[in-house]
């Protein structure tokens, strides 16, 4: 990652339907912006996958595919940081209830690895409960030279 500070800031915010097609669209949008922000190929894959996992959580677990609920998806690249925010309109969940997928008793579980992968792939990951009841996640990848 080089010369990111010279690139023009870019921000996009969209409301997406609660569908798997939206998951693909969000990943494509984020990866395209990250590419324009000068992110290298390895980090493009990580950002794409973290966005995909977060969108799946919002669409499937948060909004439960409801046609009446939208996902708010925003991406901002400012030269120093690439930030993605994803908010669902679901009922929220207890963050402490997320099991450790690396624990021996969980290794053969068929689900529960999404948030672990997001944390592994991004430099920062935060979750918060929205007053409206949904969940908002913030994913950050630092763009400054390592």
């Amino acid at each position, binding site marked *: 990652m080089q010369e990111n500070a010279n690139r023009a800031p870019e921000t996009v915010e969209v409301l997406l339907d609660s569908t798997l097609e939206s998951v693909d669209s969000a990943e494509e949008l984020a990866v395209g912006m990250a590419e324009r922000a000068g992110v290298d190929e390895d980090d493009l894959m990580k950002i794409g*996958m973290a966005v*995909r*996992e977060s969108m*799946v959580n919002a669409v499937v677990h948060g909004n439960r595919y409801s046609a009446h609920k939208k996902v708010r998806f925003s991406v901002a690249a400012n030269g120093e940081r690439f930030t993605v925010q994803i908010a669902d309109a679901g009922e929220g969940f207890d963050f402490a209830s997320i099991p450790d*997928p690396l624990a021996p008793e969980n*290794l*053969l579980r*068929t689900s529960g*690895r*999404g948030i672990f992968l997001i944390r592994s792939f991004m430099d920062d990951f935060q979750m918060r409960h929205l007053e409206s009841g949904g969940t908002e996640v913030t994913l950050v990848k630092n763009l400054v030279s390592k």
Partner: protein
Amino acid sequence: MSVKLTTRQVGDVTVVDVAGRITLGEGSSALRDAVRDMVSKNQKKILLNLGDVSYIDSSGIGELVSGFTTVTNGGGNLKLLNLNKRVKDLLQITKLYTVFEVHEDEAAAIRSFA
């Protein structure tokens, strides 16, 4: 492109050539259906060739685990062949790389079922 599964028989080993994306939806359900179909036909030696898998998400990883446990619980063996760097990295950070038996050479993988 989603996922494409092609099954071939090498001796008593069923080799499944998997190409494309194993992600939530069509990709992961196709893999699940294929494994269930093989188990229902009493095929106990299954080799998943993932050499042409371009992308796998946590749902796809879950389907690999599900396939592994389904086949193992039925008294069979499910092994993996030709992991690209991306898939190998994912299995390593999720600590699943040592759960699966992974091969890089098809002939050696076939012999390992004997």
